[in-house]
Every structure is written in C-alpha cells, then in structure tokens.
C-alpha cells in the first residue's frame, strides 16, 4: 500500500482514539495520541510535497497538478492546487494548532474538551480524505510528464493564499471549540483568526486584480462572498460586549459554509473545482456546528444584541451578502444588487468608525484608519472605474499604437509581448500560450501605477495576420487605498498583540 495512505490511516486512527480518550478523561494518553496523529498527518503532507518536488507522476494527484518543467516554488504550491491537498493541509493545521494550544499555559479539563472537539472534527476531515479525496492514489504506470498546474495558479500569491486561508479555518475551528469549552485564550485566538482571515481575503483580491484581467479586486463572486461572511461575523465579535460567543460559533459555521460553496461548485465561480456528491459532506459539520447557536438561542436576549448598534449593522451586511450568495445558486445576481445594499451599510460602518476614531488606542486607531481607506478605495473602484476597448495596429495614430510584437519560448509556453505606446509610456502586456495544462492562453496584465489611479492594460484579442491587437484599458481609481487600507488593518491588528491585553 502507498505509504502516504498508510500515514493518513494512522493519523485517522490516532486522532479518533485521542478523541475517545479525551472524552473518557484519559487526558495524558489522549495527548500522546494527538501528537502521533499530528506527526503522521504532517509526515503525509511532507511526503506529498516530496512527490511533487521529485516529479513522481505515478501519483495521480502529482500528475494532474504538476509537470517537470515547473519552477520548484510552483511545484510546492501545486500541492494545494486541488481539493485533496487543501483538505490535507486543513487536517494538518487543525492538529498542529490543537497541539500548540494545549501546551499554552496550564493543562486542565477545559483544554481536554477543546482537544476532544478538535480531534473529532479532524477525524471527520481525514476520513473524508481517505474516502473521497485521497491524494496518494497511484496510476498503474508512470506517465513521462505531468499535465501541469493550471496557469492561473502560477503566481506568487497562490503560494500563500491557500495555506493562509486554511490556517484561518483551523483557527476558527479552535476558536469555536475554545468558546464552547469555555477555555482560555479566546480573545487572542479570535484576533489571530481575524488576521489570517483578512490576509487570506486580501491576498485573494490582490491575485484576482493582477491575474484575472478585469481590472477589479472584488467581483462579488460567490466564493468571495462566502469568505466575507465569516469575516463579517468575526469582526462583529470584537464589537459586542455580551453574547459574543454566538458570533464565534456562527463564524465557524460560515467557514464551513464557505468550504461547501467553494468545493461543491453549486455556484460556478473562479474557484470551482467541479463538484462531486462527496463535496456535500460538509453539510453534516455545518449542521453540527449550528447546534450551540440554536441550543443557546434563548439565552441570546434581544437586549444583548442591541445594546450597541454595531452588531445590527454587521448583521445587516452579512444578511445582504448571504442573500445574494444563496440567490446565486439559481440565478445570476447583478453587481448592482451589492452596490445598492452593501455599500450603504459599509458607508454607515465607516461613518461610525470615523466618529469614534480618536477615543481608542493607537493600534486600534491604525486598524480603523485602514477601514476608512479601504472604504474610500473600494467605493471609488466600484463606482468610478473606467474601461475602454482599444483596437490598434502598427499604423495606428493617436494616443495608442503598436510598436512591436515579440515571441519568446521556454519549455512550457510561448510568450507574446506587445510593446504598446500609451500616453503613460510603453506598456508591455503579455499573452502566455501554454504548451502544457491544456493549451491555455493566459493574458498577463500590465499595470502602470500612478499615485491616485492605476493604468491597467490587458490583451483581449490578437490577430496575427493583420497585426491587430484588441486591448482593454481600465483606469482604476484609488486602488492603492484598498491595498494600503488592508495592510493598515492587518498591521494594526498585529500591533494589538504587543499590548497588555494579550
């Protein structure tokens, strides 16, 4: 049997044993089993990385996502290019954060309860890997080369995006367990989860802006929406005094909901992997994770929710995003829906932030300044972005003309570089024509930044015979405010760890 599969079976057996032992109050033994499970799952991940690095194409998952000519970094990031690898990554992170958490401070009964919940959830994930998403399936022969990584994922951002997102997901599971077990460190965990969730969303937006050629960082794509939902409830968590545990529970339920949306492909989006029935296995943990919310719904007095306006406002934002996402299952939801409903709520939040900004500590002030900048940037991109289609040849006169077309070739692809005279200087958008990975043509944008806007060029169409190029030109106003605002938010949140409240 494939050694990786064996490692995963061991990890499942030990994590489930650990769960039983924690429940039976045999804590010390449970802890040992937890560590065995963590080590074996991590070993399985390292083995999978090793298969990618050494081009072991007899493993189907390696064959499907990699090829020999890829740079080393992309071979590693190809590990999390599919469902199998990301699920494994999630299980490993779950076990690692749990192992770290129980060694943080005094070990007591509440920590054991946290470990029990986490090992149970991880067992469910690992069982899913073994049954439906085994990354160690081997082919009966060894193909000479792999099919190659999806060209859209061959970017620096995609090396970091999935690990950051799944670390955030593991932390949100831990936050859920810690809250339910009434254990220590809730606030620190909530902050850590928030930082990684934010980073995950921002890296995703940055990738979309630079890779997807439509001049935007946020397309109200169902998967983007689904990632925004737990972020909204977790942000609300920090702005509520009583009844905050409900927002911790809800955040994890929404994380699972996001996983379901992303993987099942019930709503098509840039992320869809193509759905299978087994992807609906997330429905069970979603329902289970809702039980504390539902069972304690009576304790959730209306007065605790409403003692400030903010929880209501955040809930409104979450409601509109949720409604739009669910409607997306059946029909196409126009962008205007989100602009009409979400933007006013966002404006209200920003207004309240601006009112209170002087009354808070320095790190929190930075974070909130980030929110204001993000609002300014996002609003101007959403409302004021300008797009123009430009068709040019070498004989074009006027602001734009085609100076030169050059073709380069490497082991994987042809690169067509267009040298275009623009009012801002020479722009060089490119087209990559891949020989691997299904002969995909990927357009690479050229962004000429100015202080207050980005000049964003992408090639839409290229006609060799007549030497005509169709360009799409976007003038993206104040996009820098989005990036600087997001960076300030994360930076401010990080700074808060330096204070005493940690």
């Amino acid at each position, binding site marked *: 049997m494939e050694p990786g599969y064996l490692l995963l079976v061991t990890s499942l057996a030990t994590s489930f044993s650990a769960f039983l032992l924690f429940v039976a109050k045999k804590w010390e033994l449970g802890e040992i089993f937890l560590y065995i499970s963590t080590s074996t799952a991590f070993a399985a991940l390292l083995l999978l990385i090793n298969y990618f690095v050494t081009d072991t194409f007899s493993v189907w998952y390696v064959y499907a996502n990699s090829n020999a000519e890829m740079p080393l970094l992309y071979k590693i990031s190809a590990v999390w290019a599919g469902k199998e690898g990301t699920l494994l990554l999630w299980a490993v992170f779950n076990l690692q954060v749990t192992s770290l958490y129980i060694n943080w401070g005094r070990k007591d009964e509440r920590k054991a309860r946290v470990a029990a919940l986490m090992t149970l959830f991880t067992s469910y994930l690992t069982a899913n890997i073994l049954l439906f998403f085994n990354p160690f399936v081997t082919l009966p022969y060894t193909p000479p080369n792999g099919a190659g990584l999806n060209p859209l994922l061959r970017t620096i951002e995609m090396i970091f995006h999935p690990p950051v997102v799944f670390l955030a997901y593991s932390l949100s599971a831990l936050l859920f367990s810690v809250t339910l077990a009434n254990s220590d460190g809730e606030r620190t965990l909530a902050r850590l989860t928030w930082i990684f969730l934010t980073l995950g969303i921002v890296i995703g937006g940055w990738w979309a802006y630079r890779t997807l050629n439509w001049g935007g960082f946020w*397309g109200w794509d169902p998967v983007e929406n689904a990632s925004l939902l737990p972020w909204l409830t977790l942000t609300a968590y920090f702005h509520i005094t009583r009844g905050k545990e409900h927002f911790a529970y809800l955040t994890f339920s929404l994380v699972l909901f996001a996983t379901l949306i992303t993987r099942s492909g019930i709503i098509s*989006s*840039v992320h869809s992997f193509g759905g299978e029935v087994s992807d609906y296995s997330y429905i069970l943990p979603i329902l289970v994770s809702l039980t504390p919310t539902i069972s304690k719904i009576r304790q959730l007095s209306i007065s605790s929710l*409403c003692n400030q306006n903010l929880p209501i406002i955040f809930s409104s934002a979450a409601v509109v995003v949720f409604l739009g996402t669910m409607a997306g299952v059946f029909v196409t939801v126009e962008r205007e829906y989100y602009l009409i409903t979400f933007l006013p709520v966002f404006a209200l939040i920003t207004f309240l932030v601006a009112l209170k900004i002087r009354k808070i500590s320095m790190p929190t002030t930075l974070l909130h300044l980030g929110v204001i900048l993000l609002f300014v940037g996002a609003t101007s991109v959403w409302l004021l972005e300008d797009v123009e289609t430009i068709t040019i040849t070498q004989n074009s006169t006027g602001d734009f003309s085609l100076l030169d077309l050059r073709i380069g070739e490497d082991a994987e692809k042809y690169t067509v570089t267009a040298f275009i005279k623009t009012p801002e200087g020479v722009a060089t958008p490119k087209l990559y024509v891949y020989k691997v990975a299904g002969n995909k043509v990927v357009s690479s944008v050229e962004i000429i930044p100015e202080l207050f806007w980005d000049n964003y060029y992408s090639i839409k*169409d290229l006609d060799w015979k007549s030497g005509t190029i169709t360009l799409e030109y976007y003038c993206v106003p104040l996009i820098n405010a989005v990036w600087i605002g997001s960076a300030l938010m994360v930076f401010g949140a990080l700074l808060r760890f330096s204070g005493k409240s940690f």
Partner: protein
Amino acid sequence: MVEKKFSIVALIVFTVLAIIVLYHNISPYLTPSELVGREKAENVQVVGKIVSVNGNTFQLSDGKCSITVIYNGSIQQYNTEVVVVGNWDGKVLQATEVLQKCHTEYKGG
C-alpha cells in the same frame, strides 16, 4: 427598550428592502465567465457581446471571459448585448438561437 426594538425593526426593514433590491437585480441569464466554470450545460441563455465573428463561429464576451459560439445562421456584430440560447459542452456553445437585446425587448436576429 424603545431603542432596542428600533434596532430589530431596522434590521427587518433592511432585510425586506434588500430582498426587493435583489428581486430587481437578478436575471436567469448566465455570463460567459459563469459558463466557463461549468462542465456541461444544456439549453442555457448566455448574455454577452459579440466581439469577433469568424465564419459561423463567433466570440461572446462579458468583459471578463469570452467563449466560442457555433451558430448556423447569419451573425451580425451588434454593439449591444445579445442573448445566445444553446448547449454548452465545456468548450464551445452550440447556439440554437441568437437574440438581440434591445433594452427590455428581445428581437430575433
């Protein structure tokens, strides 16, 4: 207490408003970028602009993505959006009908 009730009422009113706005901003039509994510889809209505015509195939684009459409009939490159009815096999859309979108009315074309 009055204030608390006000918050709840505000949330409900807002939700109702959101649903009304949502109702006015949905369309049964798919866009090319939504279609490329799907493996197969039969009898779909895809909305987009014809960007280039080549024989009896043309490119339909929504600005983000473009797909290849095969259509046995005369195609004219309109400057407005069209609705293409047909079957999607994962690579090309076999069109059965191409409709010109004209504000709220649709004409055969």
